[in-house]
């Protein structure tokens, strides 16, 4: 069975009293739970390169969130909120990179959407920018001149495309054409699976 996270939390904090409850430990690490995560990481030896990708609008509404690290809903919400606020506070001409907690954030704004990736400190930020750009190109090709509304109303497709481009936080296919071809095929399969349902069910052959 999965081990409860509180065990990792109390074990990895330097001065943690073993009788601390989850709640109070959370309070203590309120500002540094990313650090705590890294501790958990070293306990179970995870060294994730890309930790998450967020897409959000200029009003701070999340349009897509892909997490490559195990975090609870609450933690995810907090990270998203804090990070979104930090990025929205930056001026337009500023650098695309910023250090936040102990991660490096690479972000770029395309029209009304911010695309933001959190990578580990040793990563090549420029290639992450290229990854973001590639994802935008894929969306653009798929939706035909993509805009924010496309991503809002077809969010599951945006996820499918992302999952065909990145796997576990790493690029899996470097050819645009192949990614789009795979998506096309998968979409076809989906349509086939959806369409004949009524017919088959009528005959009784689900």
């Amino acid at each position: 069975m999965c081990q409860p996270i509180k065990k990792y939390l109390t074990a990895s904090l330097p001065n943690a009293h073993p009788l601390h409850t989850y709640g109070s430990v959370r309070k203590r690490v309120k500002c540094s739970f990313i650090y705590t995560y890294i501790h958990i990481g070293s306990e179970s030896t995870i060294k994730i390169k890309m930790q998450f990708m967020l897409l959000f609008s200029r009003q701070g509404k999340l349009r897509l969130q892909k997490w490559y690290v195990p975090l609870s809903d609450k933690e995810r919400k907090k990270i998203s909120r804090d990070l979104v606020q930090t990025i929205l506070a930056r001026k337009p001409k500023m650098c695309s990179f910023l250090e936040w907690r102990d991660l490096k954030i690479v972000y770029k704004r395309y029209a009304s959407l911010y695309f933001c990736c959190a990578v580990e400190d040793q990563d090549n930020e420029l290639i992450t920018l290229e990854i973001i750009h590639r994802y935008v190109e894929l969306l653009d090709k798929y939706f035909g001149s993509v805009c924010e509304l496309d991503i809002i109303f077809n969010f599951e497709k945006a996820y499918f495309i992302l999952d065909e481009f990145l796997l576990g936080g790493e690029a899996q296919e470097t050819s645009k054409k192949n990614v789009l071809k795979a998506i096309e095929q998968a979409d076809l399969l989906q349509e086939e699976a959806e369409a004949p349902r009524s017919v088959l069910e009528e005959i009784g052959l689900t």
Partner: protein
Amino acid sequence: MSPSVRLQEMIRVIRGARTQGEERGVIQRECAAIRAQFRQADNGTRSHNLAKLLYVHMLGYPAHFGQMECVRLIASPRYNEKRVGYLGAMMLLDEKQDASLLITNSIKNDLSHNSQYVQSLALCTLACMGSAEMCRDLAPEIDRLLRASNSYIKKKAALCAVHIVRKVPDLGELFTPAARSLLCEKNHGVLHGAVVLITELCERNPDTLEQFRKVVPELVQIMKGLVMSGYSPEHNVAGISDPFLQVRILRLLRILGRNNDTASDAMNDLLAQVATNTDSSKTAGSAVLYETVLTVMDIKSESGLRVLAVNILGRFLLNNDRNIRYISMTSLQKIVQTDHNAVQRHRGTIVDCLKDQDASVKRRALELSLALVSAVNIRSLMKELLLFLSSCPPELRAHTTSGIFNAAERYAPSQRWHIDTILHVLTTAGGDVRDETVPNLIQLITTATELHCYTVHKLYRALITDISVQSLVQVACWCIGEYGDLLLRGECEETEPVQVTEDDVLDALETVLQSHMSSPATRGFALTATMKLSTRITHNVDRIRSIVSIYGSCIDVELQQRAVEYNALFKKYDHMRYRGSVCGAPSVIAKLPEYLLGGSGEPVPSSGLSHTVPGPATSTSGGDLLDLLGGLDVSPGE
């Protein structure tokens, strides 16, 4: 109405809600409907309902009741339901949820499905949220897929293996043989996955690293092929052929070449080729060039190559693109210790970056400038740093001041310059300096005996201009108390002397004492200084007496105590006052001002006024003074 339109309809309705309350209402209704649907038997709408739930979840509403539905949908034979089911699993389940274990079996089955798209769903989910247990269970399956499947699956299996190795490093050995053979593939996706996998294996296991050093020639060949190949429409990005793969290969070469001469030799030519042939006008090219530079600096490269790398970084510094400037400074920071002279050549550009608009760039430029300070350039560089301090963003101030102080301490060309620099910092950013600055500065001033006159005149001027900066005021008060006689004498060689009367000086000190801006510590300094002046001035001793006695009933305990003690000095020990207690302080160690600040609870003769050294000021070493204090049974002021 087709079910997927209902999803979009729901999204439209939610977006149309004008208030948060309205939105909540809509969502509650929808969630209730979804829950009801989930409880029913399969009616063909499950996947759409889950999709709706996922949308609601993305808005921030709870969706845990959908977890079991994800498990059910993943087990469904229909592709559309599996697709949404797996998506839901990646969004709603993570390895901490118990439900995530329930999908292990489904994933296992789907990994051997005859449709590669189903296999791909399973691989993707495993790589995204697979727990250690799941990874252990499914590792053999992944290994099988690594060896015998089409390239579409192989590339995904490789990255899945990367995730498994990250979660359970011991399984690395399982994948090593398969990883090795994947390098022979032509498909870029598979190659990329293979390189990432090998990188991960080598980073975790030194033996594996040894093993893979043998493939350096092969990697060099692949890389050469990419660099020299003509235009390939499939992989071309801004003139670079598959920059993603190039960057990953370079990173792997870096790990393999680290601390190893043979491996490093084998890649020298390639790195030189990439460094010279890559067009860096667009980000893709710069990314490859950047990775090349990082690799060159990390392996045992020949010196010519290193110079080339530093020059590339220097070129990046001049790039119009702010991002490129930022990353170039990041890398220069890493090598400033080892290749100091090479980086020094670019000092001018780095210092210019201090004036950049962007805070991240400024921070990098600051770090780098501080690292580049040396005895040779200290004067000019300090000018720039002080200029930067006056306009730097507040979050960088503390760091800047401490950096400036450290640099000044190490390379100050003269004591006067040092004192001037510290004073300048205190006037510009006195609120952001560290606490030890005040005692450090006091100690510095004391040691610079020939500058006492100069210092006290400068500080007096600063004091009458502005008493808001506490650190500056404290030092100024101390100085005036200590060298008030020099101030009153009205002559100074190094600077324009101030012509003051005793009343002026006492006015200044009284202003500090009475100002609401002064902190209690500052008031303590001012009071002590006033007291010390009683031995240095002749006409206004009564005024000092009256000031001191007022504070005898001050609310602040510290001030009150001092005032009472000083009063006692006036009354009972007047004969000693001049000779002993408030005479010039010997040259002290930095600890002494703490004594002044502290004040103890002891009665006057052995009070915290620790310089109860009879006779004139002598330059004793710190050690002697402590002995003396120990002998007199004085407890250190706390």
